[in-house]
């Protein structure tokens, strides 16, 4: 009995395999958008929000696509870098995707770019912030609608100086994105005469922060600048508060520290200053409409990752509209995309030569469980794109 059920399961799985192999492209071809985002594991929430935003934008602009349908091909990256080249190849040659949207994780981005740089599909990165993607590894067909690690952190050095902080401890997980964030902060902070007393690199994905925070307390710096995201951000902010440092040593961060995590952090996050290219309460029509529509559609408030996915959708929609639905000329497509201005919920942005957004970085403070915009930390900030030859 059991064996038979298993046989059935196996044979249907094999059938699935053969079916997906034999899916041959149809005559009236839709525009194919490959999505490679994490839908399981630690980054699942980010992948899900990005996908929602992307689909919502393209659904809203369905009438602008000159009759072209959109077909989505979704693959779970599981945030495993060693799988990235394979998935990228699948979307490029098996599925013949016109656009490939992804990923969240910087390591996956590197594996993906290895395969897709200067190939036919247009790659749009809706999150992964590795400086290299629009730095030394930039390419004509690679765009990014999110940020480079450098962008949200660089202006925070000046913010710290303006508030009179001279001695700062910086801290992050010991991986590429974290290091790049701390370096960007340090760049502007030390240029203005500040001193980084100590740089603490925590092994990723360790979340036992108590000893580090105690160490910070023993150094008595003027302020602390950190990069953490997701679960680590929640734990760090809670530990910082629990050991009594909140309100005594100001906490600054790259915006991810308080993005999508405020509900879990609760009271402990109050007063944290962060820099980011978005904040929930930005007051422009695009943002208000976007937030209402997103909440109605998906039953939960939009977050940064949804915005980035949404802007990716807008970028695709605008390009298709301007080319009157004909995206077969790759060079023309890239040219149109390069010149587009996105009316994003975060405020309008356009692309730098390296295809990274030129955008405002907002200075936000957590008040009553929300990221309040208190200033624009840097207007129209462009990533230096070091090493990019575009």
């Amino acid at each position, binding site marked *: 009995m059991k064996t038979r059920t298993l046989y059935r399961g196996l044979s249907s799985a094999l059938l699935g395999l053969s079916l997906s192999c034999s899916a041959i492209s149809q005559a009236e071809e839709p525009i194919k958008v490959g999505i490679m985002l994490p839908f*399981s594991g630690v980054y699942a929430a980010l992948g899900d929000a990005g996908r929602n935003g992307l689909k919502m934008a393209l659904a809203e602009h369905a009438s602008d696509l000159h009759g072209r349908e959109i077909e989505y091909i979704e693959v779970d990256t599981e945030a495993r870098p060693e799988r990235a080249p394979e998935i990228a190849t699948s979307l490029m040659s098996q599925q013949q995707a016109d656009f490939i949207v992804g990923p969240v994780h910087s390591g996956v981005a590197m594996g993906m770019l290895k395969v897709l740089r200067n190939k036919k599909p247009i790659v749009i990165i809706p999150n992964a912030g590795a400086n290299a993607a629009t730095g030394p590894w930039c390419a004509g067909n690679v765009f990014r609608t999110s940020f480079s690690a450098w962008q949200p952190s660089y202006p925070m050095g000046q913010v710290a100086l303006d508030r009179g902080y001279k001695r700062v401890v910086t801290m992050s997980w010991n991986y590429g994105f974290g290091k790049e964030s701390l370096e960007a902060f340090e760049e502007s902070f030390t240029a203005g005469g500040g001193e980084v007393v100590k740089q603490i690199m925590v092994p990723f*994905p*360790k*979340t036992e922060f108590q*000893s580090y925070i105690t*160490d910070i*307390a023993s150094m008595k710096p003027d302020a602390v600048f950190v990069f953490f995201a997701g679960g680590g951000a*929640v734990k760090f902010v809670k530990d910082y508060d629990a050991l009594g440092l909140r309100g005594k040593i100001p906490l600054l961060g790259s915006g991810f520290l308080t993005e999508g995590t405020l*509900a879990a952090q609760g009271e402990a996050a109050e007063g944290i200053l962060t820099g980011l290219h978005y904040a929930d309460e930005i007051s422009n029509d695009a943002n208000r409409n976007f937030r209402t529509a997103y909440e109605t559609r998906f039953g939960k408030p939009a977050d940064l990752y949804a915005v980035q996915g949404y802007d990716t959708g807008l970028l695709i929609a605008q390009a298709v509209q301007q080319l009157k639905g004909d995206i077969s000329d790759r060079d023309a497509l890239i040219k149109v995309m390069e010149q587009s201005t996105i009316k994003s919920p975060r405020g309008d942005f356009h692309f730098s030569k390296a295809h990274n957004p030129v955008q405002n970085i907002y200075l936000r403070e957590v008040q009553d469980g929300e990221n309040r915009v208190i200033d624009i930390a840097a207007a129209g900030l462009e990533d230096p794109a070091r090493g990019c030859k575009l």
Partner: protein
Amino acid sequence: MDFAIFLVQLLNGLQYGLLLFLIASGLTLVFGVMGILNLAHGSMYMIGAYLMWYFVQLTDSFVLAALLSAVIALLLGVVIEKTLINRLYRRNHLDQVLLTIGMIFVFNAMQSLLWGDDPLGVAVPGWLSGSISLTELVEYPVYRIFVALLCLLLAAGLYLVINRTRLGMLVRAGESNREMVECLGIDINRLYTIVFGAGVMLAALAGVVSAPMASIVPGMGEHVLISCFVVVVIGGMGSIKGAFVAALMVGIVDTFAAVLLPQLSSMIVYILMAVILIIKPQGLFSS
């Protein structure tokens, strides 16, 4: 490092170590008695934390939520033992490894389906929310001290149960000789069910008490699992006393290495484990 900071760090290390003990105790108990290597042990920790979050939302009471979570975890453990594990006792150890890896997949998927993937948090209950000033800057939250004491209490409780009760005697007997226990006319299957259920409950309990301190996120179980194995192996598989000593050791070494040897901090517990296994290939207190 001045003396006050040294003491605070020591406290950090002890508290982390005690929590590690709580998670690891169930694993070592199950292995010691039943010889089962439960790789899904970390998932039970995760389930505990998620259940806690869910019931705190539902009942708004910390104690009630903790009790409900513990009971559900116990039942879950019993059901798993009755339906799956007990068919594998006479099979290869590797089959158990495969089974528990399958269980990790299922639990991770269930977590995503039932509770979503956003990071979640539980507030510290009002009656435990104060903190004690240690130095002019550093405070220590009452809740964390409470958790440390709770872990100590559980350790003492486990010790008493195993060394002073009839159940404990059976557990000890089961560790050394399964057939003998069976010959004495004792229902070894029932004993195994109880032990496995208790093991799952201990892991879930660790998840429950860490819920207000940690962030409740997908994948939290796997990360804990490795630390847990390190503790159990250093202590000697199956030894509760060993797990206790090893957990404190790992907690303290990890805490101080983070500050004093930052270059090695990611590897330090593994170095510790390797060194101990080179000197004592069976761990510190193996039976």
